[in-house]
């Protein structure tokens, strides 16, 4: 018993080195090196390179390109190089970097015993972890991975010994059998070595065991079970149980100078950051003087997603509109089940657990529902029929002959007329009602529901979520229409479609969450309570949910609940949204290299084209996160590179709202940012490689080519304009917060996890202090700050005067 728990604890620790991998259908963003975040960035990437073989910094080539295109400011670079004692000129240093990088490790193609272990293991992992691709699944899966492999082993000629001697009944016995000759203190190293051997599959097992979804409870798999199989195979194939002598550790400690790559990278980051910070500080000063504008025609709440920045800018120029940024799950940690859906999804960031079950319930229009039901049952029956005909050996051949001509037509249409395919989709959409047209989310708390989590939200919770939203965004006045817009992508033939959906909703569309918040805010009882908490929503304010299609920039409004009195406002809004869409689509099409005049039609083609590997740029380019009122970034073109969270320091006296933003959205944006960073610097190890050779496996992931380890992270086409031309610039996130420095210091002092991230250099933080002449201060580690202009170190201590001053200013 005791050894069992010691083993599992040791395995758990070793598993920190492997990043969690989520199934493709809900592409959750995470730092692939999340387990190393307790180490300084440069040490972490070095350690990860030893274990996983991935590069931690951009290649010299990428630096050179950035240097030549002026992305790296020469003054900033010179200062940084000087600071760290590099006195050669940049060109020479790049040459030097290139020279060391050129010694590419030669790949050993001879088959080793470890390769044989990997081949057998990946074969059975794919069979066990399959989620419905195979019609004949691996036998005995319900007994767990180890037992299932144990039961096929005697028949598998590729396994040297399948007898019970080699495969004891319990997985822990198997581990102990293999490790019996090894000293206990070597075990953690053994576990780490074997867990990082196939990091794609083990990362998936780690995530699946932790999330405990329906597949996991039906067919359980644990890291211990996996290691039992792997170590047994290692033993049977005579492969190395202990990792080779870790002599690399010795050279890692040879000097404590900052690596040249780190200097180049931080100079590049500082160049971007200066531009952003100076623009924000500038606006902070001017915005403080000009104040007070009238009630806008409508207000929008968009996700903090970088793509929102573009559409927000275009909406603001299309009319008298005000836009806000808020985490795209709109603060509601819900498990959502769509109408007629087989599975429910957790529509909230993985930092939180879903707490409310929300289902789509049909309401008014029975006719629409019947049409929808008929359509969906017929298409489903058709799909089932085709599947059944294809999978039966006796019918598949005649099926192919009878249906072949139809496939030929579809082949030609989808390849030669992708724009028309989009039109056809739209036409079908028109004819068949969408579920959201006759359904409403089950918002109200249902005490009788028998589900694993509570159904709906109580009144108190509803009020709480609404109030939190307004407080975090520093909301003070309400227009006649308030649009809450989630976002989703629309792509064809794209296994990575969910990587383009809302990251705050764990790779799901954000529309359902928007509907829940809008429904709450339209509720009279909620409004009455909100009024008591100081949020006075006028009688004539109507909340409308919507969804921003990030591929075509169309903003669809779910206007079912809008009263007749607001029909004119709505009509005007729609017209302006069309204008905004045209502008945003033209800008984005240009970014995708389609030319300035391409616009909406081009984005529609990309949404429907099965041959398109770059339907949209997603969050590529992300580099900044601005926390502050929109006035600071209004009239700035941030080129879709910055997350924007609305926040008003003046309405947040106790700093609670800011603390929530720093510990929530800021951490999530850092995950997204590091995911893009690492996938760009090493697309093979931390990304999925090129889409053109992808092979989806088991409904959970993709292989490159024939099989092997599961690929993890973003594909090449999400990051690169061409194989040798990065579109995404691998920069760590630059956060800019608009608030008094002392307030931020205090929050950091209370939240060690966030401070650790900052101190270890996983992201940077700059504060533009409205109370100190709108000057900017860079966080310098250990709760100290440097002035952006003078580079002088300041260690502000919260004083009574400062606080008194702040209140006096108001």
């Amino acid at each position: 018993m005791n050894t069992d728990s010691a083993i599992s604890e040791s395995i758990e620790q070793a598993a920190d080195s492997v990043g969690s991998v989520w199934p493709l259908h809900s592409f959750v963003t995470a730092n692939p090196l999340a387990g190393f975040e307790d180490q300084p960035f440069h040490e972490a990437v070095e350690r990860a390179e030893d274990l996983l073989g991935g590069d931690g910094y951009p290649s010299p080539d990428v630096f050179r390109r950035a240097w030549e295109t002026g992305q790296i400011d020469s003054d900033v670079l010179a200062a940084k190089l000087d600071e760290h004692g590099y006195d050669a000129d940049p060109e020479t240093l790049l040459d030097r970097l290139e020279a060391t990088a050129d010694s590419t490790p030669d790949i050993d193609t001879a088959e080793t015993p470890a390769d044989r272990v990997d081949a057998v293991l990946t074969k059975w992992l794919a069979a066990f972890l399959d989620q419905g691709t195979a019609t004949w699944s691996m036998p005995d899966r319900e007994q767990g991975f180890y037992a299932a492999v144990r039961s096929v082993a005697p028949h598998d000629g590729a396994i040297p010994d399948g007898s019970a001697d080699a495969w004891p009944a319990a997985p822990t016995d198997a581990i102990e059998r293999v490790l019996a000759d090894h000293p206990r203190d070597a075990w953690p190293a053994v576990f780490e070595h074997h867990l990082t051997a196939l990091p794609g599959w083990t990362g998936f097992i780690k995530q699946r065991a932790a999330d405990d979804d329906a597949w996991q409870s039906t067919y359980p798999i644990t890291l211990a079970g996996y290691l039992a199989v792997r170590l047994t195979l290692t033993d049977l194939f005579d492969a190395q149980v202990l990792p080779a002598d870790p002599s690399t550790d010795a050279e890692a400690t040879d000097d404590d100078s900052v690596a040249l790559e780190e200097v180049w990278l931080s100079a590049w980051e500082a160049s971007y950051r200066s531009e952003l910070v100076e623009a924000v500080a500038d606006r902070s000063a001017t915005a403080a003087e000009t104040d007070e504008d009238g009630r806008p025609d409508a207000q929008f709440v968009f996700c903090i997603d970088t793509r929102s920045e573009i559409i927000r800018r275009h909406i603001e120029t299309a009319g008298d509109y005000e836009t806000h940024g808020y985490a795209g799950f709109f603060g509601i940690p819900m498990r959502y089940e769509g109408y007629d859906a087989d599975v429910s999804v957790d529509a909230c960031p993985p930092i939180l657990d879903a707490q409310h079950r929300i289902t789509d319930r049909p309401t008014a229009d029975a006719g629409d529902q019947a049409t929808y039901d008929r359509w969906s049952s017929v298409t489903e029956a058709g799909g089932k029929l085709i599947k059944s005909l294809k999978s039966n050996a006796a019918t598949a051949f005649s099926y192919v002959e009878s249906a072949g001509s139809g496939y030929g037509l579809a082949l030609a249409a989808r390849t030669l007329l992708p724009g028309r395919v989009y039109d056809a989709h739209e036409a079908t959409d028109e004819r068949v009602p969408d579920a959201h047209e006759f359904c409403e989310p089950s918002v109200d708390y249902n005490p009788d529901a028998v589900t694993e989590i509570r159904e709906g939200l109580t009144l108190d919770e509803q009020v709480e979520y609404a109030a939190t939203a307004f407080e975090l965004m520093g909301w003070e006045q309400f227009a006649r229409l308030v649009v809450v817009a989630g976002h989703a992508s629309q792509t064809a033939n794209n296994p990575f479609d969910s990587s383009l959906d809302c990251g705050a909703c764990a790779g799901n569309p954000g529309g359902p969450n928007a509907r829940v918040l809008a429904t709450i805010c339209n509720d009279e009882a909620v409004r009455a309570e909100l009024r008591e908490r100081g949020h006075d929503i006028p009688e004539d304010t109507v909340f409308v949910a919507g969804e921003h299609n990030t591929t075509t920039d169309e903003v669809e409004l779910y206007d079912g609940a809008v009263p007749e009195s607001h029909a004119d406002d709505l009509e005007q809004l729609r017209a302006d949204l069309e204008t905004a869409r045209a502008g945003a689509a033209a800008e984005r099409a240009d970014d995708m290299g389609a030319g300035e005049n391409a616009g909406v039609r081009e984005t529609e083609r990309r949404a429907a084209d099965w041959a398109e590997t770059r339907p949209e740029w997603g969050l590529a380019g992300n580099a900044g996160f601005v926390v502050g009122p929109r006035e600071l970034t209004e009239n700035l073109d941030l080129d879709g590179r910055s997350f924007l969270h609305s926040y008003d320091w003046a309405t947040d006296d106790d700093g609670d709202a800011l603390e929530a933003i720093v510990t929530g959205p800021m951490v999530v944006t850092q995950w997204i940012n590091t995911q893009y960073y690492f996938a760009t610097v090493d697309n093979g190890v931390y990304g999925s490689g090129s889409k053109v050779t992808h092979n989806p496996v088991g409904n959970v992931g993709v292989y490159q080519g024939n099989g092997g380890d599961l690929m993890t992270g973003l594909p090449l086409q999400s990051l690169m304009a061409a194989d040798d031309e990065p579109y995404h610039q691998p920069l760590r996130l630059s956060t800019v917060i608009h608030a008094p420095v002392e307030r931020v210091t205090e929050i950091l002092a209370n939240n060690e996890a966030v401070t650790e991230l900052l101190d270890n250099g996983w992201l940077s933080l700059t504060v533009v202090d409205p109370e100190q002449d709108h000057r900017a201060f860079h966080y310098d580690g250990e709760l100290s700050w440097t002035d952006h202009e003078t580079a002088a170190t300041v260690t502000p201590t919260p004083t009574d005067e400062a606080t008194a001053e702040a209140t006096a200013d108001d």
Partner: protein
Amino acid sequence: MTGQTGPKTVGQLPNTSTSTPRAPAVFTRFVWALFVASLGALVARQLTGGSWEAPGLVVVDGLTVLLWVVVTFFSGIVHSYSRRYMAGSEHVTRFFTRLFAFTLSVMVLVAADHVALFGAAWLAMGLVMADLIGTVRGWPQAQAAAALARRYFVASSLLLGAALATLAWATGATTVSGILTAVDTVSNSILLVAAGLLLLAAMVQSALIPFHTWLLSSMTAPTPASALMHAGFVNAGGILLLRFAPVVTVDATFMLLVTVVGAASALLGKLLKAVQTDVKRKLGCSTTGQMGFMIAQAGLGFFGAAIAHLILHGFYKAYLFLSTGEQVEHTSPEKSTTGTATLVGGAVTLLTAVAGGALFALLTGKGTHLDSGLLLTGLISLTTLHATWTVVKNTDVPAAFRYGAVPLVFLPAIAVYAGVYTAVAAVLAGVPLVTAPTDLTLVHGLVAVAFLVAYVAIETGAYQRSHRLYVALVNASQPSSGTLLTATEDYNEY
């Protein structure tokens, strides 16, 4: 401040002005031009009849123009698709050059009359395809897969070479047409040797079991290249057997062997497919099965049906390959329940099945005589039966759909197929021995029984009890281990 010229830009991303190579556009236009020309040739040949030839070198007959149209269509689709799909790839020029070279080599193959030209085109086709499998140069697993495929294709070329040499030596002719007219003068045993060699070459090229490993290890090819491989390349086996039909059909027992070899691959391929978890290998196993069926059709003497099958299968498989990205679903582990059926449902099912078979027999003439055509008509009836039964059992859908769908959708589909088959037969008129139905034998009966048993076994899931069979199937469908990417750092595309 920047004034009124629009919002001030902050941290603008640099322009990524990717230079677009010219090869994709040029080759795509060229291949579509070839398609139009082939269509023209097909029409002209149908109007004028007969064949055009450059004596001793090429002969353009019905099979030639038909396959020209087919291969340029598939190639055109793949070219057009790849222009967007492969955009930004550093291999794009080489990729398009290979695609186009492959197209040309197939066009030469189907027109070649001189045995040396025929053999050379066959070899060229294989070498170019192997190169496409290894499109990504810096990726060791892709190179291993290419090398494996190359070995198979060189072997099949040697087999073909040996067959051609034997026939040329025995007949004294150096052209395919010359050999075929002189077949009567050659002794049976020599013809059997040649036929055996031809069958082996066809099996390798069509990835029939046990020569399927190259196909299941070929997924390192970019998706459009796989589409072309599964819609075009693997068909070569069927084309070879049709070209040399007079040799292959010389012995009825040998035809039985062809049927059995094909049927075995057809059923085993489907079984292999059942255990696959990745999309492309699943499609690969399906191709092995479909090609087996096509060869079995040839073995039954229906060479025209085999050609129709490979064209229609090409549409189907190219579509599925090009849409592999769509195959990721969010599923739940619950098993779906099957519905129940009523007496009315049973009656509708039977009637529809009989109607399906009858319609097919009527339109194609297959199955109206007591010969091997009965087998094919029987399969059509079984498929119709199964389709109707599946829908009729599904009580979730409206009754009108349940009883009407299959008669209204499936019967026209059968008619379309029959139309394609008759059209193919018409175009092929004049090609030696397009249809040579064989007499029914005990072996045919066994093949029919095997299909029925397979149908029942799959419907009941009875075969799923054997762990041994499961493991054997999984192992038989493993790619060559050197082509597996187990260490992702080996993958350095850029």
